[in-house]
């Protein structure tokens, strides 16, 4: 609590929770629906965890965000000397940015900025700005001055060289493509798919704790994998129960397999320095696998010791198949292909390949009933996160999506999007044959999808703003002066003239306080 002359001024962050509640209540009372619809007030993130119980959510970064946040321009430059990384970076760029890069790829001198900006239409200037910012942030190009004093863009020479090599050839071949003798017993795609999925499921089963029950097909996973799970906060060490799954872990389970692999690999790369691996080499290797052809064998000949170790780890998670540890031949599996891009992977699956994919087992009806033809503990556990389970049979689980069950999941930090995409991903093949499913994009009943989204929106009616309450003004004049000042500074959150109360944003508090002191001094 602290007082400024005769005015009571409660600093909410140091105040008790009840004060905070009051403020929130006031804000709630005031906010109209229109206000919340139009959107997000700048709510300071520091306040949110106190107000609502929203734990750290699973943060899924795409490759671009990863590079932006984790890498410095120097280390990016180092990464760009590997053509596979450049190809991956290129494909992650926004569409306009890709066009720009292609257009200056074969231009040897820097291109004036004005020229580049004239390539895009005026209408999409904002999008264009995003694209150019993205290219700068990833150090794909940089500003140089050209004679005449104009600012110009120039592609990073390393990036340019690597992309040209990828496109037109030249340079050294990628590390994994040493020639091999023909495999006497080549592995087909179906086998690789089955292998990859069984390996990956091992990790998932371990997470929900079903791997412990000695099952013939599930093996325990290595301490290294456990360490990654712990590092990624997907599991935590509990004194009493040993290692248990966290909230993020459950969110992780809801992701589709590809997103899971990508998230997992990012976490792995975070810890690769500790293992003595070079990040650039690992990334390069990962993308070489990502751009390889399914059902084809590659060679690990000539790799250094660290890379061989990396390969063994990939083998454990099912990204590559290798008969024996010592063998130089390995096959990348579907898990490794197109790791960064979900859409690409989905679209590239042609019809006859589709049945190789994991069979869907979930039927959702318009009455919110969910039937899951499964006996897997893992799948039941995941389903139980957002449905109310009614019956269990040896091969069938029946549940129902209710407001309570879905809200519980939402409270746990799972998003409606995740629930819907999970249901879509594992939808029973027959669901896809329904007339409405063929016409629309989703095979789920639209009412159910909409309702789940509405349930989520219900929770987003409030926006939280941290603020400071000013009240107990002695005169209306004082109040009006201070309120108008706060308004002119754009820091006023809420005010009521009758009770002479106003709420000011926390970051504006100092300013308003100073003004009040000056004002009251001059008045008094």
């Amino acid at each position, binding site marked *: 609590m602290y007082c400024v002359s005769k005015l009571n001024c409660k600093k909410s962050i140091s105040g008790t929770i009840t004060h905070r509640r009051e403020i929130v209540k006031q804000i709630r009372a005031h906010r109209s629906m229109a206000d919340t619809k139009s959107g997000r007030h700048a709510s300071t993130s520091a306040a949110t965890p106190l107000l609502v119980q929203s734990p750290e959510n699973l943060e899924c970064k795409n490759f671009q965000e990863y590079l932006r946040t984790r890498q410095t321009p120097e280390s990016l430059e180092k990464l760009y000397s590997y*053509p*596979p990384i450049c*190809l991956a970076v*290129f*494909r992650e760029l926004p*569409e*306009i940015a*890709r*066009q720009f890069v*292609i*257009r200056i*790829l*074969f231009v040897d001198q820097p291109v004036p900025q004005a020229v580049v900006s*004239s*390539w*895009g*239409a005026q*209408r*999409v200037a904002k*999008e*264009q700005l995003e694209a150019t910012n993205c290219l700068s942030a990833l150090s794909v190009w940089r500003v140089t001055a050209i004679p005449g004093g104009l600012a110009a863009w120039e592609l990073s020479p390393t990036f340019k060289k*690597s992309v040209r*090599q*990828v*496109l*037109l*050839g*030249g*340079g*050294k*071949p*990628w590390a994994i*493509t040493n*020639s091999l003798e023909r495999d006497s017993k080549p592995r087909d795609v179906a086998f690789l798919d089955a292998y990859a999925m069984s390996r990956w499921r091992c990790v998932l089963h371990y997470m929900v704790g079903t791997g412990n029950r000695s099952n013939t097909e599930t093996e325990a996973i290595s301490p290294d994998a456990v360490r990654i799970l712990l590092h990624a906060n997907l599991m935590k060490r509990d004194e009493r129960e040993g290692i248990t799954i966290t909230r993020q872990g459950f969110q992780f389970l809801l992701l589709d397999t590809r997103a899971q692999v990508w998230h997992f690999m990012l976490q792995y790369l975070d810890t690769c320095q500790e293992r003595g691996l070079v990040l650039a080499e690992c990334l390069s290797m990962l993308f070489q696998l990502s*751009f*390889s*052809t399914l059902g084809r064998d590659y060679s690990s000949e000539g790799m250094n010791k660290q890379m061989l170790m990396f390969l063994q780890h990939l083998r454990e998670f099912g990204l590559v198949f290798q008969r024996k540890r010592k063998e130089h031949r390995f096959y990348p599996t579907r898990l490794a292909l*197109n790791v960064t*891009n979900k*859409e*690409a*992977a*989905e*679209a*590239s*699956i*042609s*019809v006859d390949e*589709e049945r190789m994919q994991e069979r869907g087992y979930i039927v959702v009806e318009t009455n919110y009933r969910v039937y899951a033809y499964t006996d897997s503990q893992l799948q039941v556990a995941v389903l139980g996160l957002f449905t109310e389970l009614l019956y269990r049979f040896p091969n069938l689980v029946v549940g129902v999506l209710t407001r309570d069950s879905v809200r519980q999941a939402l409270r746990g930090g799972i998003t409606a999007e995740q629930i819907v995409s999970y249901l879509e991903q594992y939808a029973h093949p027959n669901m*896809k044959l329904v007339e409405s*499913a*063929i016409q629309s*994009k*989703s*095979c789920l009943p639209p009412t159910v999808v909409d309702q789940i989204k509405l349930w989520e929106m219900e929770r987003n009616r409030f926006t939280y703003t941290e603020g400071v309450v000013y009240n107990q003004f002695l005169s209306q004049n004082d109040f009006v002066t201070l309120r108008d000042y706060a308004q002119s500074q754009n820091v006023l959150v809420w005010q009521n003239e009758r009770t002479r109360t106003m709420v000011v944003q926390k970051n504006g508090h100092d300013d308003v306080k100073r003004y009040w002191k000056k004002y009251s001094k001059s008045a008094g």
Partner: protein
Amino acid sequence: MESPDATANKEDEASIDLLAIVLDTNPSQLIVRQNPQNLTQILEAVIAFGNAHLMQKAQNKLAVLSCSHYTTEFLFPLPGRQVELRQIDAQYEAFSLVEKTVKQQLGSILMNAPRLSAPCESLLAGSMSMALCYISRLQRNVPAGVKMHSRILVITGSNECASQYMTFMNVFFTAQKLGIVVDTCALDKTLSLLQQGCDITNGQFLKVNQLDGLLQYLLWVFLPSPQMRHKLVLPPTPKVDYRASCFCHRELIDIGYVCSVCLSVFCKYSPICTTCHTIFKTPGPLPIKPKKKKKIDKN
């Protein structure tokens, strides 16, 4: 809530872009006759352009057809199993596959081509219909929920082929109906027929003046997918000449005779339609209607 624009963007990112390139390899093209090296240069540019298209998105697809005076062949992809091939340099595996296959196929086509005594015109319209067939076959196999945007790019240095007028028009209107964009890159002369086709299907028509800069032209004008072309500044479309060419002398005409069966256009009257062989009656002087007798007269 995402803006509709962002959603559209997302969808575009997820969709498959199929590009079918119809490459005119007819040796009787003027630019090839002047300098056979030109064909190699064009081929290199087309391969690099095709690969640039594949590089855009992992799910993009490419088809290259060769069109000559006697046949149309697929240069890429080949039916059946792809050639087994190992990387020899840092080029991406899939790209080297395109390059090797296209070169190999075209080589064998040119070797087996019958000798020409006189220049003949390329079967462009036929090749385009083949491309349409290929596109519609792929379209059927697209998994549910995935969108596919297709387009055809014709690269040719041939002259106007008015004799294929009918096929061309069929191709254009089919493409329009299927939502397939037809782009044309003319290397030698302005082709008014193909220009019409581009206009009908919202495609781009470009006449390249310098063959040296071909790749850069292709990358600039034809690489962006039709969905994102409105975001870029592309050369403005010149006024399209919608005059039909007459079938007898292949000249553009303003007023002419039209066959009532197949709508072929002629500048002079002919008793038999050369396209559909319909026989017409000789146009005599217009029959004069006998004047109706006035009722008053009769009474």
